């Protein structure tokens, strides 16, 4: 292979480029990125960057010394597999011998009435974060549509500054992957910190003059707003691959080694990848977490240098975290697939807890609250998930565990 092209200049793409170089690839390495920025890390955008605590240089990912031919501000428009070329929006073509696709995702915009008004924000990239930071300087009333990761983290950052915050979601609890019990706890956490929560509430539209002034609920209630943050999830950037013959729906279907189905010269990493995971019984899943992007990028970079039969599979239990007020929420595995989520261990005061999610009687994921030190043992357990009752018994017998849940036998 002479020329490796990585499309997508964010975390997954950068990790792929770094891994390929570290594994000895000394050919041409081209990195195509839609944004004008070099790779940066996104988790601080909704926290320290939005709070104005971190400057832009703090989020830049180190990427010197890799011998990369950067094509930034250049969006990919289509993929011509027979000619092994990427066609850019400006008409330029980039030839490849092997290709790593890591185009990530973009935020879902407000699809209903009022979407054209000023003062409506999403939070995905650095420019979004800086724009919202600037808006916060006016001390606006902030209304957030969608109580997922972004919505909850923006709420906590805005509350730390003492801004008035309303958090709206059509679901009955925030942070859906946490399940109903922990979701209710999360709602209480935001309530205690002064967020006005409107759960189970549909949004009919956004209204204003030129600038947004209110969020109208389907109940007829009107919530005043100077700034609206839309946190309705993300969509994978794969439309440009439709017509390439690859399987896109909307994730790009890959095998366990992150190789695109039907084309061994194409691999992928990060938000766009739909791949079969052992914790999902081999069903294809798509995950939008930082660590999955980082680890898949690394593996795709290595796998791209070897022939398909030598490629390794990506089987790690997915990990995410979210910082909300004084709580670090951490998760391993796929708790969103659990049929039930139960408390497994807790300190006597309840300040540190670990919950386990069970599916068909087996552990499928865990959620830890301020309990980072307990993650290691569950990570190992999730590599070969035990029966849930067996796990419960072993945790109860583990002297390193936080303690028995209150009320447990």
């Amino acid at each position, binding site marked *: 292979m002479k020329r490796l092209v990585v499309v997508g200049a964010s975390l997954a793409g950068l990790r792929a480029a770094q891994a390929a170089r570290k594994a000895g690839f000394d050919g041409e390495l081209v990195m195509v990125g839609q944004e004008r920025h070099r790779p940066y890390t996104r988790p601080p955008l909704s926290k320290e960057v939005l709070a104005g605590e971190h400057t832009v240089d703090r989020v830049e*990912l*180190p990427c010197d010394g890799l011998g990369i031919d950067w094509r930034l501000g250049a969006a990919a428009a289509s993929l011509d597999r027979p000619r092994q070329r990427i066609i850019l929006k400006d008409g330029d073509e980039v030839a490849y011998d092997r290709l790593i696709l890591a185009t990530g995702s973009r935020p879902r915009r407000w699809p209903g009435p009022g979407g054209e008004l000023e003062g409506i924000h999403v939070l995905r990239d650095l420019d979004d974060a800086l724009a919202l930071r600037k808006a916060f300087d006016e001390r606006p009333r902030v209304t957030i549509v969608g109580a997922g990761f972004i919505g909850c983290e923006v709420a906590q950052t805005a509350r730390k500054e003492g801004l008035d915050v309303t958090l709206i979601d059509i679901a009955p609890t925030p942070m859906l992957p946490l399940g109903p019990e922990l979701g209710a706890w999360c709602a209480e956490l935001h309530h205690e910190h002064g967020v006005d929560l409107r759960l189970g509430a549909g949004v009919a539209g956004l209204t204003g003059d030129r600038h947004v002034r209110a969020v109208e609920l389907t109940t007829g209630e009107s919530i005043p707003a100077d700034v609206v943050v839309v946190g309705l999830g993300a969509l994978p950037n794969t439309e440009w691959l439709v017509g390439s013959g690859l399987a896109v729906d909307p994730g790009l279907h890959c095998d366990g080694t992150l190789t695109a189905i039907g084309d061994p010269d194409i691999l992928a990493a990060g938000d766009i990848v739909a791949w079969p995971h052992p914790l999902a019984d081999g069903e294809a899943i798509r995950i939008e977490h930082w*660590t999955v992007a*980082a680890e898949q990028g*690394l593996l795709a970079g290595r796998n791209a240098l070897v022939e398909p039969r030598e490629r390794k599979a990506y089987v790690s239990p997915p990990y995410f975290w979210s910082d909300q007020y004084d709580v*670090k929420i951490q998760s391993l595995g796929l708790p969103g697939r659990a049929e039930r989520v139960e408390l497994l261990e807790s300190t006597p005061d309840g300040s540190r807890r670990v919950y386990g999610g069970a599916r068909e009687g087996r552990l499928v994921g865990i959620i830890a609250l301020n*309990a*980072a*030190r307990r993650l*290691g043992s569950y990570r190992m357990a999730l590599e070969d998930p035990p029966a849930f009752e067996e796990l419960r018994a072993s945790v109860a017998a583990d002297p390193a565990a936080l303690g028995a849940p209150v009320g447990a036998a």
Partner: protein
Amino acid sequence: MKLQISTECQGHGRCYTLAPQLLSSDDEGYVTISGGDPIEVPEELRELAEDVVGSCPENAISLIED
């Protein structure tokens, strides 16, 4: 070759779950060498050490070549 971890550690636990041969955690889940002296990495664990560097969401880990 040495691994060094800055005070940016937030206790994600990626590094010590990935490389228990090299790293461990304190009671709070932070890596024990956070903000402390670098530790020696044997040459045969180079690839693992490189993975550890890239695994940290806080960019807190660096590899120092001899």
